[in-house]
């Protein structure tokens, strides 16, 4: 296909993305005004957080073709950095969140430099191992770093984690309605993260990866370096992942090693797989659906992880392109259909 066709296709896709995004944001702005139920607002805020992580993970996994399982570890870097900056240095939370995002990018680039020279399954195993080591180092830490009245505090908070490291000031501003402030911060972050995801998928980086998939030999001989683009996507997407972690810490006013749990990783991976790997809106759709499914499965508590496992395995086997792929194959054929050799 010619470059012209791609850029025209990309332009109309971007316009469609902008309209859809605008409508969704407008609807989301109305939610707290229409409902007084605190539970709905706080659960939607949690949805925003997971949706940010999932859109960025999707960039790494679906667009960059990097099979990284370190996403929640990066999320944890953001969360812990925020909590530690607040706890040890009493830094204002907005500044701490920004610094946490930058710190996550640095960590991510380090992990990327170590892992990205490898391929597919090697990357998955190595990133999973990195995440596990981080978890073990945090959770098994029992040496006291400081010793306040509340009890021994290890450098990374140990198994208990951090609480009381500051907030965004909404409690002082809105009193008991502070969670509405968090809602809009989450929405804003998600809008930015989605815009970034659109820019990557429809922009030069997305084209480069598309070229590397379609015809790796030609792409490489035209000077497209897979390693370079992968490192860029891996590093940049970590910014919003870290920011999501930072916001998670501030929103719940607590961070603990639970963020490393396999259960959370499974939940988020299911979102991407259900929605559709590599698409702009699939992961968001998947995140929304799985949050709702999770809500429904709350009644049956213990069966939740079994249900998640079934959803994950079932979708991969029966519907590997996710719900977004279903829509595409029913409607018009996607423009890149001919010559699209995924995973080459």
């Amino acid at each position, binding site marked *: 296909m010619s470059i012209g066709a791609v850029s025209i296709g990309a332009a109309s896709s971007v316009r469609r993305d902008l309209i859809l995004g605008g409508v969704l944001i407008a609807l989301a702005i109305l939610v707290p005004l229409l409902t007084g139920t605190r539970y709905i607002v706080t659960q939607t805020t949690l949805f925003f957080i997971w949706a940010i992580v999932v859109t960025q993970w999707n960039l790494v996994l679906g667009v960059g073709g990097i*099979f990284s399982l370190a996403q929640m570890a990066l999320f944890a870097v953001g969360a812990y950095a925020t909590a530690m900056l607040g706890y040890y240095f009493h830094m204002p939370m907005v500044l701490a969140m920004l610094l946490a995002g930058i710190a996550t990018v640095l960590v991510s680039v380090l992990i990327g430099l170590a892992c990205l020279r490898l391929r597919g*399954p090697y990357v998955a195993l190595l990133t999973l191992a990195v995440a596990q080591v981080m978890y073990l*180092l945090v959770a098994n830490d029992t040496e006291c770093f400081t010793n306040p009245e509340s009890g021994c505090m290890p450098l990374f908070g140990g198994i208990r984690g951090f609480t009381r490291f500051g907030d965004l000031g909404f409690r002082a501003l809105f009193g008991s309605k502070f969670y509405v402030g968090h809602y809009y911060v989450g929405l804003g972050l998600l809008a930015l993260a989605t815009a970034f995801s659109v820019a990557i998928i429809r922009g030069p980086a997305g084209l480069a990866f598309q070229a590397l998939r379609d015809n790796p030999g030609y792409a490489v001989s035209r000077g497209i370096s897979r390693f370079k683009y992968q490192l860029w996507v891996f590093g940049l997407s970590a910014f919003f992942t870290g920011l999501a972690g930072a916001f998670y810490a501030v929103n719940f006013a607590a961070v603990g090693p639970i963020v490393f749990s396999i259960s959370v990783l499974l939940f988020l991976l299911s979102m991407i797989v259900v929605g559709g790997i590599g698409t702009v809106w699939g992961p968001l759709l998947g995140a929304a659906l799985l949050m709702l499914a999770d809500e429904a499965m709350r009644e049956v508590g*213990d069966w939740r992880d079994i249900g998640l496992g079934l959803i994950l395995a079932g979708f991969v086997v029966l519907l*590997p392109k996710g719900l977004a792929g279903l829509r595409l194959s029913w409607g018009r054929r996607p423009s890149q259909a001919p010559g699209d050799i995924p995973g080459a």
Partner: protein
Amino acid sequence: MDVLIQIIASGLTLGAMYAVSTIGLALVYGSLNMLNMAHGALLALGGYVCWYAMATLGLHPLLGVAAAMIVCGAVGLVIYCAAAQPMLGSANFETQIFIATIGIGAIIENVILRLFGPQPTPQPLNLTGALVIGNVHIPHQNLLILGVALGLMAALALLLRHSRLGRAIRATAQNREAAQLMGVRVGFVYAQVLALSGALAAISGIMISSLSGLLPNMGGDPMLKAFIICVVAGLGNVYGAVAAAIVLGLLEAATQYVLGVRYSFAILLLLVIAVLIWRPYGLFGRKQVVRL
């Protein structure tokens, strides 16, 4: 000197345990290009089935082990039929099967949790007594593990080298299409490989749980270590995996003694990353033929 003997003894035991779970993984990856993330859950399942057969049904230990091997082998077959077979031809097979087996692993682990509860349970298949060398006590259990592991590896090597099934597995691993053209029933071979890997996982799970006790999520860490060993050896290389398992077992015992348990996994990982930067396809791995 005593310390050295102690480190070597526990290192060899660790290495032998890792080797048994690693062989299963390496076999499956070598023939199907499939990373079985449900392997950890199979380890736990094997341990629990053996415990259930011995403690609740009162069966002979050998029957307990056999039951565990049969159940885990059957689950391996189910994994093949339900997840791997439908996707075999797909272009993204490696990624998709990885994700699917993560889901299957979660299902198995939580079924175990529902059936047997979250409390740690000791594994009844456990020898008492110890061999004394100088001032060092080496429990008979460790010797048993070492012996079983060595026996299994020898049996597997014989199987791979001399049996019809072994030749079929090696042929399929080398070139699926060519093997198929020569009349090897590839799907049948794959199914057998997964069943075999499940049975090996059962034995390995029984060994691990005899030292550390049973927990529904006990398989996670050994599986990750087994994967790391596979990666160091070069994915799919069975003999390399055994060598790497024993070296890493010794190394882990040594770092645990010198630096404490906390850092042993981190050190292991740093080492692996260093190895992979030096040799991206593992120590014994051949460079894969990839299109750029």
